[in-house]
């Protein structure tokens, strides 16, 4: 690291690399908005607001809340499909969320190094162009599968209202509800998984900001502009 030859090579490295293409960025922020709407409206569907006075015909509060929930649900589901498509046609960074290299020893070494970094057991984090291995693992294991679970159970619950014969019922409710035993448990798990996503979001935002400040590359602005900037000129761990 300290030889002058290596240093000269490092200096030739680009100061910024284009990582997240526009569809990934747009999806990220639309999805973030949809999840926020879904979590808030979903909570108020389970625990409704204080009762409205007057005639029933004067109000449609639950109706609007449920409409917002269903609309945001469609946005999330269609966005998820679009994101899946982009994983196939986009750059290699667009695939990380879907295909973490779980069978690579180097990957798990990286995960362990990141854990040590967050436990203050090492002075310096590795530098990555894409996601760090721990982030990749958690995004895949928690965020991706929880989102898919919410989409499937969400449509199953929606199908209960749209009724037998609707495509939502045929494609989702007809097998999801018997799988859980009855509708009540599907509601409970849909509700519980909302909290799993909430925990993910809390940690995700905290660590994105923390990494932006403390790590060796840009974080938050990367998801806005698409460019990853680096704070030192040493080579990244996942460089080619």
């Amino acid at each position: 690291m300290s030889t002058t030859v290596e240093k000269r090579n490092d200096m030739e490295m680009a100061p910024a690399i284009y990582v997240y293409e526009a569809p990934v960025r747009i999806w990220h922020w639309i999805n973030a908005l949809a999840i926020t709407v879904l979590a808030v409206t979903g909570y108020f569907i389970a625990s409704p607001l204080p009762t409205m006075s007057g005639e029933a015909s004067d109000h449609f509060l639950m109706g609007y809340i449920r409409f917002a929930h269903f609309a945001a649900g469609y946005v999330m589901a269609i966005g998820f499909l679009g994101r899946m498509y982009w994983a196939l046609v986009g750059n290699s960074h667009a695939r990380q969320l879907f295909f973490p290299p779980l069978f690579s020893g180097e990957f798990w070494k990286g995960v362990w190094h990141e854990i040590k970094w967050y436990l203050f057991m090492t002075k310096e984090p590795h530098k990555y162009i894409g996601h760090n291995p721990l982030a990749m693992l958690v995004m895949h294991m928690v965020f991706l599968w929880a989102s898919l679970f919410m989409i499937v159970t969400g449509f199953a619950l929606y199908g209960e209202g749209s009724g037998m014969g609707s495509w939502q019922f045929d494609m989702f409710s007809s097998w999801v509800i018997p799988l859980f035993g009855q509708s009540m448990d599907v509601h409970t798990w849909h509700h519980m998984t909302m909290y799993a996503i909430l925990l993910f979001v809390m940690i995700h935002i905290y660590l994105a900001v923390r990494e932006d400040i403390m790590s060796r590359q840009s974080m938050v602005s990367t998801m806005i502009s698409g460019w990853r900037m680096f704070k030192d000129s040493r080579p990244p761990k996942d460089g080619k």
Partner: protein
Amino acid sequence: MTETFYEVMRRQGISRRSFLKYCSLTAAALGLAPEFAGKIAHSMETKPRIPVLWLHGLECTCCSESFIRSAHPLAKDVILSMISLDYDDTIMAAAGTQAEAIIEETIKKYDGEFVLAIEGNAPLNQEGMSCIIAGKPFLEQLNHVAKHCKFIISWGSCASYGCVQAAAPNPTQAVPTHKAIKTSKPIIKVPGCPPIAEVMTAVITYILTFEKMPELDRQGRPKMFYSQRIHDKCYRRPHFDAGQFVEKFDDEGARKGYCLYKVGCKGPTTYNACSTIRWNEGTSFPIQAGHGCIGCSEDGFWDKGSWYARLSDITQFGIEANADKVGLGAAAVVGTGIVAHAALSAVKAAQNKNDTLQVEGSVKEQENV
């Protein structure tokens, strides 16, 4: 030859006019087009009665109680005689050896032809000793008869899902019909505690008329009665959509008949026909009487927590909680963790800066030396 249904009805003093009324009402209840009334009448006039064996396991007999109170004009007189109800130990005249002999006789005469109706369920623990019929475990009787029947009707939540006998901790290991029998036979589940009388009679009428099982959903319930939730057809639904709820059972909302969602009504998760057919000659149903649905026709409804709470209990972690308690608790822990971690990160960062400065300082000192 066995009598036809029509002959039985006429013998019981039922006029042809009443008989035709019954046929059209049944067609309507089954959701069939008007021309099916004639079809039903025709099969009633021409088809011999199908023998039915009605067995009772661990139960409270509420299914029978409901059945004999069918508000259908002729049901209480006719349905019971319509089906050749060969064996039903709670209402049959015969008793003891004589009664038990009828089972064997029916099996011999109508092997593979008769319908087996089951009320209640069989306990598996202690080789079924928790339910004894005629000196033998009910489990044995059930398996013996099930082997020879054409298909099975599971009356009520006991036979369909297990109901109260199967609620945790289920000491007798009571199991629903489909888990108790060793032979695989088609099963129609008619859940409810009890099922609605008109639903029971209509299911039987359908079977007799068309000589086949009604269309079932994936859980084995007749679609015509269990395809919609109580919530979907509830007359209080406009109050739900408007956001008007009963907050407590004695509040203004309760008096005005607002939606019972917030006091734990299980209508949105319960598939049954209560809000359309109602009970006791269509008089009322629980929600109309001001109490939320308890979800008695759903699998495991005893073990899902309070009847007055929307969120089911979560007991997997050895504690009593619901999704909100678990979720908000976890969020609080993670939130505290984040704040602590952020604070520690700031301290560490400050320390590292000092260290670097000191190292740089000492290097400079050394250079100076």
